[in-house]
């Protein structure tokens, strides 16, 4: 590792940081969370704490800028130089700057949160297939109301999960119109506008009126950014692709690599590139703001570049899903600040110190009720603010007033409340407590007299080998082995040791078994494994299903629904879940009768 000349470091422990402005590439809460997690990388191995403040007095000022952005070290457009930071000290020292000509993501493509629809605000999944075609941006296809939508899974045709993409026709942000959508055309200073405009503003933000006449009503909002089709770099950064466009006399209705030797996708931002020569790069995987920020914050704490290619402080960008710190980084930062004084951190009993890594997700209320072809109801958003004609007193780039802090605080984040999750990925009784898994996190629930919920915890903190998304899990009461299933893979944890991932065919399941949707331990080292309408007898000792062909579920468990997404055992009863409901079967009396039907959250978790 290397430090800067003179071992520059901070001489206090509680470091403060200020997010001075935002990139439009990511939702604000995702940016806040990425920076908070990037700081947490370093606080986890040092005595340092990082507290977010609001103002220039912060030790570390975080800024997005392009080209020359005020410090004499200009950025260089898309790619190449991504960000830089200054070593610890006063003034600009310690600050971190990010090149906003880059596409900032979480490393795996644009993050487009959705609204309404039936996916509870989940982000778009690009590419997704719809009606046999592949889409890598939001689309109005399939709709008659011209609203932009996307699938939140790879395959809309089979999963039917969708949401509406940011669009000024759906809502506006900030301004003074309570998030009402734009009205087109509207008049402003006597002129008619049929699209968002930056006229009247010097900060380049696109806005619109939410009534037919801004001159008369003075009601306005800012147009949401469409990151899925906004170009980066080129000579029209921040503008939208225009499809179709003409290039060398040929018409293109999607991004293309034609004309380039580096294979990068681009599009024109007017209908005729041959005439107007306006263009930019189409969204690609982008750069993980979390990883680049963690690197820059290393500089801001006093670390220089290292020659260890696997280390976080190596100068080149490398996307990884692993924890980014290398032993070389830890040695370096502990050379400057020492190790973390407390014993190993315990799992939080109430809320985790770190924020969720994904935008808040509010799950659906039952089978999709809104089809792409139906109109959503609009919702209010955004605080009232100033008119676009005067300098904004609270500009859209102003930071939100509250943010994550180093000390665990009672979380206000609705997505952390187990009662807000309607559809769980998997539910399993482990160690006499119900474990509910969702999107990389899980809660522990103890029922009985005193209802007690703990979490959410990060799955990877407890079972590091597991993926983000689980299909099912079960604990074998005899051996205490815990089986986790996701897709065609299985993991078997015995205490902290893990076997897997292994393919399901290692258990004797045929290739066409796409996933294990549930399991019922039978005791004596036996269990039932479920997949869709079938189940197999499974021997935990040999870890094989018996060779007979599967049995249909409704043969053994009459009355339960067939398209279950989870089956688990809890307090000696079998639970068959479909959507947010369960059918409880008493397996004791061999008749396997359904003796109760209810809501998972209200009747099992006793949510209010």
């Amino acid at each position: 590792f290397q430090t800067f000349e003179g071992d520059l470091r901070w001489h206090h422990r509680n470091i403060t940081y200020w997010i001075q402005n935002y990139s439009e590439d990511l939702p604000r809460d995702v940016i806040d969370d990425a920076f908070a997690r990037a700081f947490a990388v370093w606080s986890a191995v040092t005595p340092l704490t990082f507290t977010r403040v609001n103002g220039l007095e912060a030790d570390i000022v975080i800024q997005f800028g392009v080209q020359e952005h005020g410090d004499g070290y200009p950025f260089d457009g898309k790619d190449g130089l991504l960000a830089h930071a200054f070593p610890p000290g006063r003034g600009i020292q310690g600050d971190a700057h990010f090149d906003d000509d880059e596409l900032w993501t979480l490393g795996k493509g644009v993050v487009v949160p959705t609204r309404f629809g039936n996916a509870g605000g989940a982000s778009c999944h690009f590419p997704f297939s719809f009606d046999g075609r592949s889409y890598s941006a939001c689309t109005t296809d399939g709709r008659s109301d011209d609203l932009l939508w996307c699938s939140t899974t790879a395959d809309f045709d089979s999963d039917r999960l969708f949401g509406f993409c940011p669009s000024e026709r759906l809502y506006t942000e900030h301004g003074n119109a309570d998030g009402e959508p734009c009205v087109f055309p509207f008049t402003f200073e006597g002129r008619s506008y049929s699209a968002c405009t930056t006229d009247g503003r010097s900060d380049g933000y696109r806005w619109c009126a939410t009534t037919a006449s801004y001159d008369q009503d003075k009601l306005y909002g800012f147009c949401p950014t469409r990151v899925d089709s906004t170009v980066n770099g080129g000579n029209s950064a921040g503008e939208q692709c225009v499809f179709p466009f003409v290039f060398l006399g040929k018409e293109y209705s999607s991004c293309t690599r034609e004309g380039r030797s580096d294979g990068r996708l681009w599009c024109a931002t007017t209908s005729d590139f041959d005439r107007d020569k306006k263009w930019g790069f189409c969204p690609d995987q982008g750069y993980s703001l979390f990883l680049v920020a963690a690197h820059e914050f290393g500089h801001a704490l006093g670390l220089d570049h290292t020659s260890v290619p696997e280390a976080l402080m190596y100068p080149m960008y490398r996307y990884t899903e692993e924890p980014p710190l290398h032993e070389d980084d830890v040695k370096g930062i502990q050379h400057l600040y020492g190790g973390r004084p407390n014993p190993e951190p315990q799992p939080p009993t109430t809320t985790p110190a770190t924020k969720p890594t994904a935008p808040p997700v509010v799950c659906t209320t039952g089978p999709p009720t809104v089809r792409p072809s139906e109109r959503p109801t609009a919702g209010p958003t955004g605080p009232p603010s100033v008119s676009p004609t005067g300098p904004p007193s609270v500009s859209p780039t102003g930071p939100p007033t509250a943010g994550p802090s180093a000390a665990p605080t009672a979380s206000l984040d609705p997505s952390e409340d187990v009662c807000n999750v309607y559809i769980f990925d998997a539910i399993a009784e482990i160690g006499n407590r119900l474990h509910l898994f969702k999107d990389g996190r899980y809660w522990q629930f103890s029922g009985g007299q005193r209802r007690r919920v703990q979490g959410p915890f990060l799955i990877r903190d407890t079972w590091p080998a597991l993926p983000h998304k689980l299909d099912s899990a079960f604990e074998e009461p005899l051996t205490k082995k815990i089986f986790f299933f996701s897709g065609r893979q299985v993991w078997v944890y015995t205490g902290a040791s893990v076997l897997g991932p292994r393919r399901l065919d290692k258990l004797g399941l045929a290739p066409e078994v796409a996933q294990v949707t549930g399991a019922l331990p039978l005791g004596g080292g036996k269990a039932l494994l479920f997949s869709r309408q079938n189940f197999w007898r499974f021997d935990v000792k040999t870890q094989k299903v018996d060779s007979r062909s599967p049995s249909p579920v409704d043969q053994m468990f009459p009355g339960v629904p067939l398209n279950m997404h989870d089956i688990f055992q809890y307090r000696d009863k079998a639970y068959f879940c479909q959507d947010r409901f369960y059918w409880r079967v008493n397996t004791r009396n061999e008749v396997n009768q359904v003796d109760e039907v209810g809501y998972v959250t209200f009747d099992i978790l006793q949510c209010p």
Partner: protein
Amino acid sequence: GPRRHQPTYVVFPGELRTSLTDTQLAEEYLYRYGYIKVAEFRNDNQSLSQALRTLQKRLSLPETGELDSTTLEAMRAPRCGVPDVGG
């Protein structure tokens, strides 16, 4: 059947970088990240080779002192803007 058409490459307005030669790209990179100081640069092969060797050592690349493809690829990779030498 259809024949693959010969690709046509255009220089896109506002995109300087692609028009740099490899050596120009290398000189700009070595200067920007501190491997050579303008005053020291004598524009001869020896000082370029020395600077390249320093870069290759620093980035754990094969130390050839040549502007080989591995080094050029590293120079084109997205990276942090803090200089590697000289703080």
